[in-house]
């Protein structure tokens, strides 16, 4: 065995010939693997930096105050994407408001209430398949169901409902995985104290699973922001701002997100605009990531607020 492994190392030294332990440098394969792994890691980092850098260089000149605060208008002679930014935010917010509670709820059901068995496995398998369906299929389905059958037409609502279907499996799966990582003995500890199941879930399971759940939500936001195929025929490509403060009825109007507008600009050969939109998209994704991180911390602070009250016990004890 040892003869063989030394031979693989590229050196045919018999163990009996040389008993020295100073052979670290003979481990050629280890070194080669180390270099390869290091290279792989560098490639991914360089790719990210390269793409962001390229987009910034090509697109930053298109990003002017006018570009982000006006809408494209032949009359005024402006080129802007303010409408698309607003549409994107609309669709993110509405989709998350719809999908997050349903996704977390179904994950809690599957993990904590349903008896493990064929039915649960069927649901889990379905969820996985749903997560892998190409988004254009969701677009087709959403257009026919919400847009035509339910008469919502091209609207932000149609788009949001379609995306809700699309990201629901993502949020459900992530929440399930997060719940599975919560140690079983937290559950028995809580139930052994006589909590109801729901109280246990609310006070122990969900807080412990929160980082995983939030990761799922961030991934979902990524998919929403990056989606174009599922939205083109559901939310449409409207690029106007809500008129005279009619923020609510805007939901029933057509609204193209940044990614949809990016696609349209590219298909018209307007590469300057396209790269400008790309810069804004990257910025939005980064900002949303930051906000979510901050929210996670807020959440932790909310938990330790109870804790802060407990300081009183310590203080009253010292008085005695």
């Amino acid at each position, binding site marked *: 065995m040892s003869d063989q492994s030394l031979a693989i190392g590229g050196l045919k030294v018999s163990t009996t010939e040389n008993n020295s332990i100073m052979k670290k440098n003979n481990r050629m394969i280890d070194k080669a693997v180390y270099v390869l792994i290091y290279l792989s890691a560098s490639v991914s980092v360089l790719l990210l930096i390269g793409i962001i850098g390229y987009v910034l260089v090509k697109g930053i000149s298109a990003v002017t105050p006018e570009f982000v605060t006006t809408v494209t208008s032949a009359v005024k002679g402006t080129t802007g994407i303010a409408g698309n930014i607003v549409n994107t935010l609309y669709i993110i917010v509405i989709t998350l408001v719809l999908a997050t509670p349903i996704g977390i709820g179904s994950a809690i059901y599957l993990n904590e209430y349903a008896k493990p068995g064929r039915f649960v496995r069927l649901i889990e398998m379905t969820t996985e398949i749903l997560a892998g369906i190409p988004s254009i299929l969701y677009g087709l389905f959403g257009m026919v169901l919400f847009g035509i059958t339910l008469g919502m037409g091209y609207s932000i609502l149609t788009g949001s409902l379609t995306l809700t279907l699309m990201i629901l499996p993502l949020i459900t799966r992530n929440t399930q995985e997060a719940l599975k990582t919560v140690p079983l003995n*937290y559950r028995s500890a809580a*139930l052994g104290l*006589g909590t109801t199941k729901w109280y246990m879930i609310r006070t122990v399971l969900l807080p412990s699973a929160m980082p995983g759940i939030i990761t799922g939500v961030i991934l979902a936001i990524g998919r929403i922001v990056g989606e174009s195929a599922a939205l083109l025929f559901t939310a449409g490509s409207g690029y106007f701002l809500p008129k005279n403060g009619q923020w609510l009825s805007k939901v029933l109007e057509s609204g193209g997100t940044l990614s949809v507008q990016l696609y349209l600009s590219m298909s018209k050969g307007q590469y300057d605009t396209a790269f400008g939109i790309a810069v804004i998209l990257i910025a939005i994704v980064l900002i949303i990531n930051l906000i979510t991180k901050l929210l996670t911390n807020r959440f932790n602070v909310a938990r*330790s607020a*109870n*804790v802060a009250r407990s300081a009183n*016990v*310590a203080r009253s004890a010292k008085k005695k």
Partner: protein
Amino acid sequence: MVKNKIEVRNLNLHYSQNHALKDINVFLPEKEISAFIGPSGCGKSTFLKTLNRMNDLVDGVRIDGEVLLDDENIYDNRVDTTILRKKIGMVFQQPNPFPMSVYDNVAYGPRTHGLKNKAQLDEIVEKALRDAAIWDEVKDRLKKSALGLSGGQQQRLCMARALAIQPDVLLMDEPTSALDPISTSKIEDLVTQLKKDYTILIVTHNMQQAARISDKTAFFLLGELVEMGETETVFSMPTDKRTEDYITGRFG
């Protein structure tokens, strides 16, 4: 005559095809410490869990027979397990504090049962921590995470958490098996102290521990209750050959 806090009659427990507890009959006197000894897998932990219905959480468990707590059958359909478990607290083998502050861990039970008044909570938390002999070690770090405590401290915290719901009965499932000798002796002292207010059941692998702290000892083997009696009697002149073999270390 001491009153029996818990009476177990003809208890049988099946786990799928496996007959895990066979026709158990036990009387547990109030405000005494009863120790359950026996080799691994003999059913003593399973038996402990039938007393606060923690086995309900395991799929495929079937239980026949009666467990009476103050003359009420805990397996009656009308039983609210929430109230049952408030009366019968439990300390587990592995210390399992919640990922919360020391204070919130102890206040968890009372809060579950609807107590919101801060002054009352403060009082209960302090009393429970003092009763569990850990107050002096944690009083300055009540708002820090309980996960930062040592294993022995965590286990005493878990005892405080169980005491904070003011149960009548305390079930302890090998509470010292994961602890060092010093922490173990602290827990043992504590259990002896708690006897004046609580009926205590302790499952242990450590026969010296059973001999040191318990009033009654029961010996389980292969799902059967072989023998139960005064601890001194069980250890000095057991009536069953199997008990004698086990406690003298000649077993199998």
